[in-house]
């Protein structure tokens, strides 16, 4: 008996509706194929503020926050950037609620040397209005820009070397944080790969530290980014985080949210198409019609202008690792859908958003990271697709980049990828050149561009998927050039893609489709229990 979130297509099943960028496409899937849906949203906490207060007063493996405070001490609050959650959360963002309570507590205890750092690592600097959305008007007006600002990983004078792990990983973090008497990290945990030691050891680090684990060698040893115990990346980050925590006084506050990505008018997008009411079906048709007719910026606005009504499902505080255990448990509770048996062909739509294009366009390199990086890795125990299998994705792969946010991506895709797709070669030859590019560094530091090495990291993120998959086929690409550059085949329709995939698949291939977003993870059980063959009737 399969889980209710795993639906097997039969002859009466309605077509499935998958994202193809910022459009919705109806797809007729073969009978017998499975579609995995997200679990319904977990129940949200009724009183989030009470939960925050309880968490900081009853922390795990640490004294309560108030006991750590003394007048005149130097405190740095670091917090997650805009890459979480996706799409951005409806106000008040849970980070605002945590900050409000923490800042009040700090004031009560006479702590006035407080700075809030957005832990962007090498992500783009958040804009003032984006920060205002996350922290709220009151905090923004009181702290921005002198005491509330973005981390700058290229301000080398403001980075401080802490030491090197036994594996040779150099830990260098934001100087203000390192020189503080207390670091309070305010995390919003969207997926299991976030939080824990990643918060401080990655969020406040620079290129010197990042290159220890954001490289093809480590990425190839990750067997699901979303399952920390199977991820060499996580192992490396934990080593670095432990070194940092030995030398620093870190108090971690982590929050988990449910998967209510879509607000009431769009809630049906998370439902099984067979269960849609007539009203919902009509709404879906209307939405598809509208998206087909309006220009791209309007399509983007339809989705991106509507913040998500996420509910907070947990608040945990205290020592980093103890806290993160509870966070992971709650996260898996929301996301993990038990699935029995790997597929030969994995199908997924690629939506319009990734952690790296909030308020901008999902460029081709990010399509790659969504497919080979994030969606491929939404599993525990074993990949959803067999080794050497085929992944079919739906996305237009439009050759379009945001000049302001993704400046270094453009050169990476159009100048570097035509030379080589080999991650090791990119890492050894091209990455150091980009890392020293003063124009891109300037855009990262004073504009709103991602760090010049970020496109390389995006390519490495796809490495685990690329190493595992035999073929990648993209349906609905509006050009041949980009898929070719990424090493993908193209098909005009899903039927054509399935025909192509079946040529290299075993007879009667197992086909699995991810109905995503909202986010879920497949808790894979590799062996499919075969039903016993019925005994022949005697006589």
């Amino acid at each position, binding site marked *: 008996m399969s889980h209710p979130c795993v639906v097997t297509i039969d002859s009466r099943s309605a077509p499935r509706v998958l994202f193809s960028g910022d459009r919705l496409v109806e797809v007729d899937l073969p009978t017998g194929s499975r579609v995995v849906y997200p679990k319904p949203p977990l129940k949200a906490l009724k009183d989030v503020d009470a939960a925050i207060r309880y968490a900081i007063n009853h922390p795990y493996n640490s004294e309560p926050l108030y006991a750590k405070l003394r007048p005149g001490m130097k405190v740095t609050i670091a917090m997650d950037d805009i890459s979480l959650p996706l799409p951005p959360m409806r106000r008040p963002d849970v980070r605002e609620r945590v900050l409000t309570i923490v800042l009040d507590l700090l004031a009560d205890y006479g702590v006035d040397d407080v700075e809030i750092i957005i832990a962007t690592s090498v992500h783009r600097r958040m804009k003032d209005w984006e920060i205002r959305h996350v922290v709220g008007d009151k905090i923004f007006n009181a702290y921005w820009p002198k005491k509330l600002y973005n981390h700058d990983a290229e301000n080398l004078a403001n980075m401080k070397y802490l030491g090197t792990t036994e594996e040779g990983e150099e830990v260098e973090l934001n100087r203000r944080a390192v020189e503080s008497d207390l670091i309070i990290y305010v995390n919003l945990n969207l997926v299991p790969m976030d939080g824990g030691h990643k918060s401080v050891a990655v969020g406040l680090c620079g290129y010197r530290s990042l290159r220890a684990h954001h490289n093809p060698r480590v990425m190839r040893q990750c067997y699901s980014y979303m399952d920390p115990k199977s991820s060499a990346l996580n192992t490396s980050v934990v080593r670095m985080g432990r070194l940092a925590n030995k030398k620093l006084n870190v108090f971690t506050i982590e929050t988990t949210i449910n998967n209510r990505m879509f607000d009431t008018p769009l809630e049906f997008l998370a439902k099984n198409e067979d269960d849609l009411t007539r009203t919902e079906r009509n709404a879906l048709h209307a939405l598809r019609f509208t998206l087909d007719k309006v220009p791209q910026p309007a399509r983007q606005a339809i989705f991106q202008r509507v913040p998500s009504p996420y509910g907070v499902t947990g608040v945990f505080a205290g020592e980093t690792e103890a806290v993160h255990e509870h966070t992971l448990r709650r996260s898996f509770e929301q996301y993990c859908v038990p699935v029995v048996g790997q597929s030969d062909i994995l199908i997924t739509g690629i939506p319009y958003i990734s952690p790296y294009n909030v308020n901008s366009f999902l460029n081709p390199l990010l399509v790659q990271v969504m497919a080979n990086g994030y969606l491929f890795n939404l599993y525990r125990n074993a990949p959803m697709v067999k080794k050497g299998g085929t992944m079919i994705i739906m996305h237009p792969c439009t050759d379009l980049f945001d000049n302001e946010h993704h400046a270094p991506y453009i050169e990476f895709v159009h100048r570097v990828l035509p030379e080589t797709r080999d991650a090791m070669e990119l890492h050894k030859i091209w990455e150091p050149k980009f890392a020293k590019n003063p124009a891109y560094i300037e*855009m990262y*530091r004073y*504009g709103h561009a991602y760090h010049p090495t970020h496109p390389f990291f995006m390519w490495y993120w796809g490495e685990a998927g690329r190493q595992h998959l035999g073929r990648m086929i993209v349906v609905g690409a509006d050009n041949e050039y980009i898929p070719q550059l990424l090493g993908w085949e193209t098909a005009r329709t899903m039927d054509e893609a399935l025909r192509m995939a079946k040529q290299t698949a075993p007879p009667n291939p197992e086909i699995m489709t991810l109905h995503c977003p909202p986010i879920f993870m497949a808790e894979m059980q590799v062996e499919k229990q075969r039903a016993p063959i019925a005994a022949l009737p005697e006589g």
Partner: protein
Amino acid sequence: MAASYFDVDGTLIRTNLVHPTLYYVLNQNTPLHSLAKLGGALVKAPWLAWAETRDRRIFNELLFTSYGGMSEDRLVGLAVETFERVIKPNIYPGARDLVQTSLDKGHDVVLVSGALDFLMRLLAEHLGATDVIANRLEIKDRFATGKLLRPVVAGPEKSRLIREHARSRGHDLDECFAYSDSYSDVPMLSIVGHPAAVNPDRKLSLLANAYHWPIIHVD
């Protein structure tokens, strides 16, 4: 090793060639001399306006005739004062960082400007730049003739001078960077592997967007 070539006026500083020239004109030996110089400059103003739209080289040559008759001592003596009063207050807030980033990455930093060399050397010293490509006045019997020595640093000539400079220092132009605010510097931006637009004018902004050149704002 690479080099970063920076246009100056509008890119690193707010002023243009006219401001320091005007400072010199207004600071002659006597007020009468200054008045005479200013009169001469005003007579040339319409021609300058015409040359500005037609040919940067003619504009430069015409503008620098105002220095004619000034002694070498005066030119050098007033340079520090001109730099302190006219150029230094007009350096863009982010200019030093932009130059420093290039220096941090091990680049030679070269200022390429139509302004006069003795002023540009002071700016280079102030910003930490390693070299200067700038215009030089012809000096005869220790007095400026008002003519520029060849080659006049302007427009397409900038790109030839950059190429020469890169060759003489052993830089691969494909690895070099160039920064400018003006569409008139497209030749200079086009010969390096990494062009960037800084506070670009409208035409350069359109071009930079079309070619995906980095666009940086230091103002």
